[in-house]
């Protein structure tokens, strides 16, 4: 590993060709699909993005009011509402709910927030079986891996790797046909559903107005988890609230198109409490756990805009850095541009540990352009870079900039350096034993030095007042 590169550079360099290809082909397709769908369906998709951004910004800036409203509505609908300020408290709350019902077998639908609090490991240690039911998450679970994309957890794997895992875990002889793999998973997980006594989900949105929890899946797994047993627990980040039911229409239209180029995700559930009296299947009890876990600190920061995020993954798909690294390069639950902002912030006191992530960006702005809630991600990345700088956090890959800053702010020094540096053209720089310089040169070619020539040229053509006339 070279000292002059960022950790994410090293990760990308060591990534196998196979993984890089898997990630790249998938995100390129998704980026194109998203754009085509939005442009086919709306004359001005930007209008919706900007509107959704404002609605969500308004919500987070009034989060105390909307949380209370949502809590009251959920309670009225017959759900039991809990709050957890830390990951630990959320895990304990969930365990207690399960224990009270004597539940030991839980089926889970895909939820990033349960990844965030490392729920599965904890519950398994407490004797609760947790089965991931989203196909991708199920594969992640049997592999002991972690998701590398918000929407497509196994983006870094190909079908051969999946087939090998299935064979290893007794799910049939090697067969890498995706249809066969899917049907084997259907059969295996069907049994798990029918034996389960609790279903765990996240939530995509919560309407403060009605208390409706909205959960979307394409596979139907969240629906099955809420049809086969009597207990539903939803773990929800406090930022998932939206003001009105009407706004659900706005966000659903953007979420499906941004995430998977769909007008609507296949199963869109509006859950208004436990099952109705006439319904024989589904939860008799519904619990909603609102999780802070660092979000209120993000809310207090100037980077609070990131709390608008609706987890569509579009910024990951379009990001040139994500495309070279996959999500694992970000060393945290949330990867890609959104993760580069969110992970250091959610880390709280561990901010220095992730302070390099905001630098893992060329600030090209593509993430901002595709964001369905118009989050100015590049601006937030810059703020975090500056915060790291102010806090004096030295992270790998950052060359010392102080000498440059001194030089660049003094015209005299600058001019001298520009002219003097011409000597570089005659120095054997590729032979200089300066480790960071050599690492840098390994992947780049230094152009011929032409510093200082602009001023000379300017002077010769008649100084600053010549008005740019050609003479």
């Amino acid at each position: 590993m070279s000292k002059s590169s960022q950790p994410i550079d090293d990760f990308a360099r060591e990534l196998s060709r196979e993984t890089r290809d898997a990630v790249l082909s998938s995100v390129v397709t998704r980026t194109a699909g998203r754009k085509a769908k939005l442009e086919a369906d709306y004359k001005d998709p930007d209008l919706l993005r900007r509107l959704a951004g404002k609605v969500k910004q308004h919500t987070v800036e009034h989060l105390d009011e909307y949380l209370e409203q949502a809590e009251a509505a959920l309670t009225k609908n017959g759900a039991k509402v809990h709050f957890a300020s830390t990951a630990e408290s959320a895990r304990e709350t969930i365990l207690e709910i399960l224990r009270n019902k004597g539940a030991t077998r839980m089926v889970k639908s895909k939820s990033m927030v349960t990844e965030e609090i490392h729920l599965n490991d904890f519950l398994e240690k407490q004797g609760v079986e947790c089965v991931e039911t989203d196909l991708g998450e199920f594969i992640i679970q049997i592999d002991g891996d972690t998701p590398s994309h918000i929407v497509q957890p196994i983006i870094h794997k190909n079908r051969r790797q999946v087939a090998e895992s299935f064979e290893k875990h007794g799910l049939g002889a090697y067969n890498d046909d995706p249809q066969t793999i899917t049907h084997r998973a259907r059969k295996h997980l069907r049994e798990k559903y029918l034996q389960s006594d609790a279903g765990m989900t996240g939530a995509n949105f919560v309407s403060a107005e009605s208390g409706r929890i909205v959960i979307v899946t394409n596979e139907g797994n969240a629906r099955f988890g809420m049809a086969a047993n009597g207990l539903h627990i939803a773990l929800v980040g406090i930022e998932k609230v939206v003001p009105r039911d009407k706004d659900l229409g706005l966000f659903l239209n953007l979420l499906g198109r941004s995430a998977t180029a769909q007008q609507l995700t296949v199963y869109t559930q509006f859950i208004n409490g436990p099952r109705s009296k006439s319904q024989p299947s589904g939860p008799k009890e519904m619990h909603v756990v609102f999780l802070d876990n660092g979000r209120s600190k993000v809310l207090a920061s100037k980077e609070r805009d990131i709390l608008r995020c609706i987890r569509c993954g579009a910024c990951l798909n379009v990001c040139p850095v994500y495309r070279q690294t996959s999500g694992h390069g970000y060393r945290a639950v949330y990867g890609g541009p959104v993760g580069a902002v969110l992970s250091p912030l959610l880390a709280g006191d561990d901010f220095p540990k992730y302070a390099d992530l905001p630098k893992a960006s060329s600030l090209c702005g593509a993430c901002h352009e595709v964001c369905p809630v118009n989050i100015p991600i590049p601006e937030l990345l810059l703020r975090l870079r500056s915060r790291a700088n102010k806090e004096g956090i030295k992270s790998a890959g950052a060359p010392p900039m102080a000498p440059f800053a001194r030089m660049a702010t003094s015209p005299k020094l600058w001019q001298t350096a520009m002219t003097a540096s011409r000597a570089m053209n005659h120095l054997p720089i590729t032979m200089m034993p300066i480790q960071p310089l050599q690492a840098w040169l390994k992947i780049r070619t230094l152009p011929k030095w032409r510093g200082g020539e602009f001023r000379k040229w300017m002077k010769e053509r008649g100084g600053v007042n010549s008005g740019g006339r050609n003479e």
Partner: protein
Amino acid sequence: MSEARDTVMRAVRQALSDLQEKTPLPEYDSEILICAKYREGEVGGWLEFGENFAAVSGRPLTEVGELLVFLKEEGNDSGYCDPSLKERVGTVLEESGLKVHYEYEHDKVDDYTFGITRASGVIAESGTVVLNDEDTVDRLAALAPWVHVAVIENEPIFETIPEAIENLGDSSNVIWVTGPSKTADIEGILIEGVHGPGVQICLKLD
């Protein structure tokens, strides 16, 4: 629990206490959410629904006979039917030799290859079938079989998504189904029939 609540709420209030200017809640007309293709079309209603439902691999049908042919061709010989649809749907299938159960038994979930239940409406703009807890005789019957047949008689055809949102009603569970259950988790390849139905039918009876 209430202590945890206070901690979270206090932290949120504290975080917002220094905020000088707050973004107002924008007002907007939900018309802008309707997709252009739909807004400019002049068809609407069941025909529009059918087209959009087919575009997401759904099968819109208007005759029990068509349903019968499909079920037989696909080798579905035994399934479940909501007893309230016995007369109009179930008996027609039985007369042609299909085995139809009117009581949903939870230990036989995998024996039913088709499930016929009532829908609460459809959404034309998106090709979506709307189900709710009161109209669905059993959540599993609409989910576990390979073929799900959602039946509408006089239930509403919502033209647009915003209209359907306005009419969510007070059911404890409303679910929009836009095509068969599917995944693209493995190499982005589309596979239908993951946990729910691999075939989603909507049958409209006059």
